[in-house]
């Protein structure tokens, strides 16, 4: 696979996300596949952030360390990132922002100085259009023609008026021409062809889109990075679908509002991150006891406590599975990429309603903020199953919310939709929902609820496999490590090994079918972004199998193929 990595570095507030967004849309239009991830600090101005785009001639799902094109909007990008540029790579920097030390570093033939803001100002345009100059400069390394970049700018700035569009196009052309004059008609990476339309979106787009596709009608949330994108998306676009998104005073209120709305009969969700999830756990226990469906997105970031608020980790797995106090049925899903995020989010609502229980969708900052090109979603794959619900004549005065039934799934009635009364309680209750104290009812009600857990397990989503079918080495993971594992497997196979990737889109209950893969004679490595090996423990607890080795990352940075390969036997970091 031919790939090309572009890293745009700068301070928060400098517009590097704009440059990145322009480029990723234009590159997609040009026919590239891409994967783009974001690295940012917990601040609004200053610091050092980057937006990294990996272009490829085939599907890509992860990132690479080595940089082909470095765009430096500030000095720190030069001092900190220059050594990541691979031999033959190009650096485009703004000489106006470099001090004398940094200026020495860029005294190399592959470094091109381009005063982004000045380019805009010289054309009589506002400084903010420096972003277009930077995008134009990079585009000169990607394409013979500027047409596609111009079209992209027209699309992105179209609602701001013709003057803004033409200004940006003019500045982009200037950036393009300056670089073209220097590099000339150098051979460029062969232009790929991606047939047909595709989407370019990030996890925080795919998750709310999946929820809307599932017919979510209510959301309540409290802002917390990196989940906030989900909340804002529903708030912004929900109105068209007549969805209520109510910002709560805290996460406790958010989950309880969600539970109230779901009890009343609508599909309801909330989104948060670790600390907020912690505040929600008491209510999850209520949802478990009262058998109220609820979907919670927990976009993980490194803990403990406030941890690294803008970075990535998979350290909430054990906590999400434990979820709360007491025994009650639940499921935890862990989408590995934007496509899975879309379909699993919709699936989460079916699970929650069919089994009348809480479902947690584990995302993380890497999934939430990373863009990828994918084929258009197939909406016909989204099925809305609302489970056992009665109304009207079938919900007469003898209706019992928690009627005993072998599989544990009693019929729901939305209050007011029949003569029958709906009585639900977090206190232990009888079939009619009223409070009980006797041992017999308690035992039967606990068994009724937990019967559902067996069904959830029987219907658990199986592992998603890639690579060799008769592996000698297996890499097992969940959530956003999916792309990194798939790429590591591909590289291992290209080296003549038989490697297999096992991705788990459902982490609780684990699918029984996982056992057969764990029994293969291969060497097994569990790959996860946390310190203590939470997936490893979960698998050991369920199947009594320990892997050959573990590959863990807990520095707040996303996993990629190199990280994994370096830590396998024979890799340069093996055993460290």
């Amino acid at each position, binding site marked *: 696979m031919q790939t090309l990595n572009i890293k745009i570095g700068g301070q928060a507030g400098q517009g590097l996300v704009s440059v990145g967004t322009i480029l990723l849309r234009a590159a997609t239009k040009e026919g590239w596949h891409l994967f783009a991830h974001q690295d940012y600090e917990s601040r609004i101005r200053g610091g050092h952030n980057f937006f990294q785009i990996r272009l490829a001639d085939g599907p890509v799902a992860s990132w690479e360390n080595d940089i082909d094109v470095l765009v430096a909007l500030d000095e720190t990008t030069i001092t900190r990132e220059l050594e990541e540029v691979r031999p033959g790579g190009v650096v485009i920097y703004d000489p106006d922002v470099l001090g004398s030390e940094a200026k020495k570093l860029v005294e190399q033939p592959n470094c091109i100085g381009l005063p982004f803001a000045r380019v805009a100002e010289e054309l009589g345009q506002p400084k903010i259009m420096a972003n277009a100059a930077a995008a134009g400069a990079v585009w000169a390394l990607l394409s013979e023609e500027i047409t596609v970049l111009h079209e992209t700018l027209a699309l992105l700035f179209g609602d701001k008026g013709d003057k803004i569009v033409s200004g940006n196009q003019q500045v982009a052309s200037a950036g393009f021409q300056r670089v073209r004059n220097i590099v000339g008609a150098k051979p460029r990476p062969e232009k790929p062809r991606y047939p047909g339309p595709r989407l370019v979106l990030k996890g925080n787009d795919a998750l709310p889109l999946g929820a*809307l596709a599932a017919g979510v009608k209510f959301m309540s949330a409290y802002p917390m990075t990196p989940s906030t994108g989900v909340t804002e998306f529903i708030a912004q676009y929900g109105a068209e679908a*007549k969805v209520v998104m109510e910002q709560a005073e805290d996460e406790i209120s958010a989950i309880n509002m969600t539970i109230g709305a779901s009890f009343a009969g609508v599909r309801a969700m909330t989104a948060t991150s670790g600390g907020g999830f912690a505040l929600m756990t008491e209510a999850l226990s209520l949802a478990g006891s009262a058998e109220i469906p609820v979907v919670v997105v927990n976009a993980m970031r490194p803990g403990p406590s406030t941890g690294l608020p803008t970075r990535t980790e998979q350290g909430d797995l054990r906590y999400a599975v434990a979820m709360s106090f007491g025994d009650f049925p639940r499921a935890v899903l862990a989408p590995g990429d934007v496509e899975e995020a879309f379909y699993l989010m919709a699936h989460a609502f079916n699970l929650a309603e069919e089994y009348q229980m809480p479902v947690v969708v584990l995302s993380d900052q890497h999934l939430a903020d990373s863009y990828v090109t994918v084929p258009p979603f197939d909406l016909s794959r989204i099925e809305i199953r609302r489970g056992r619900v009665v109304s009207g004549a079938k919900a007469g005065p003898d209706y019992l919310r928690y009627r005993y039934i072998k599989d544990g799934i009693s019929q729901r009635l939305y209050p007011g939709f029949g003569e029958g009364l709906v009585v639900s309680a977090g206190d232990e209750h009888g079939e009619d929902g009223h409070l009980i104290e006797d041992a017999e009812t308690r035992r039967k009600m606990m068994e009724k609820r937990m019967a559902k857990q067996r069904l959830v397990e029987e219907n658990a989503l199986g592992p998603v496999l890639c690579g060799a079918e008769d592996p000698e080495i297996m890499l097992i993971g969940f959530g956003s490590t999916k792309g990194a594992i798939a790429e590591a497997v591909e590289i291992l196979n290209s080296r003549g090994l038989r490697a297999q990737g096992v991705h788990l889109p459902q982490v609780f209950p684990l699918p029984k079918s996982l056992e057969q893969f764990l029994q293969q004679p291969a060497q097994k490595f569990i790959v996860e972004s946390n310190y203590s090996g939470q997936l490893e423990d979960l698998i050991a607890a369920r199947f009594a199998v320990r892997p050959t080795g573990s590959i863990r990352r807990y520095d707040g940075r996303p996993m990629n193929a190199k990280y994994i390969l370096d830590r396998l036997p024979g890799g340069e970091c093996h055993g460290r």
Partner: protein
Amino acid sequence: MAGNQGFVVSRETAWCPGCGNFGIVRALAKALNELGLKPSEVLYVSGIGQAGKLPHYISGNVLNTLHGRTLPTATGAKLANGDLTVIAIGGDGDGYAEGGNHFLHAIRKNVNITYIVHDNQVFGLTKGQASPRSDQGMVTATTPTGVYNEPFNPLATAITLNAGFVARSYAGDQEHLARTLQAAIQHEGFALVDVLQPCVTFNRINTYQYFRERVYDLDQEEGYDRTDRQAAWARSWEWGERIPIGIFYQIQRPTLADNYGEILTTPLVKQELSPGIVEELLREFQIG
């Protein structure tokens, strides 16, 4: 409690004999019957404590939730189905201690629900500890030298936050309580009814006799203007020889549902699911 013809009060409860809660549940049934509602049209959302059990002793739909979380849960239910008459029920520990933050914000949101607080100035179900409403100096198991904290003033707080309906009633006065609850349920917007409710087991200070000697009805006072916020606020601090009950403050302001406009013209739960919107949205992310 299964019938849908009128509101009936259960004979069996887990309350102490003589508890002020009996007066509240009977007055509530009376108010609802007089309003001509059907039990299936009413949803009680309650928390934990002796007050939280009330919905189990009267006909209607029930969501008996967690300690302190009554108001957000009721808010979610009301937003999902505006056709339901939603009555939130809790105690002073539940609502003013554990759920204090929700109390502030439910008022700000002005969701169209009625909030009945059984205010017995003590924790009943956990056997008599101090509550945010306990009088200063009250000796309890957790405050052996007497309550030090300033008592929480729910009425003053609600008026400060411009709640649309702020009332106090007394569990010992059935007529007054039923009338006040009826007005609260009919009010469009968040309606607080703080009910003085003697705890016969754990509060030996604020007894039936204590209140009988002190309460007077603001509704009967000539010249009292319940739309005058300053006057209402001043009156909410009267607590001593004389304790006012009645509607302290009532004004109309847009409710949370009004804020959602067309989205809530039809209750959410009665709307068709509209996943079709996604096809349109996806075009914004599509290239080529």
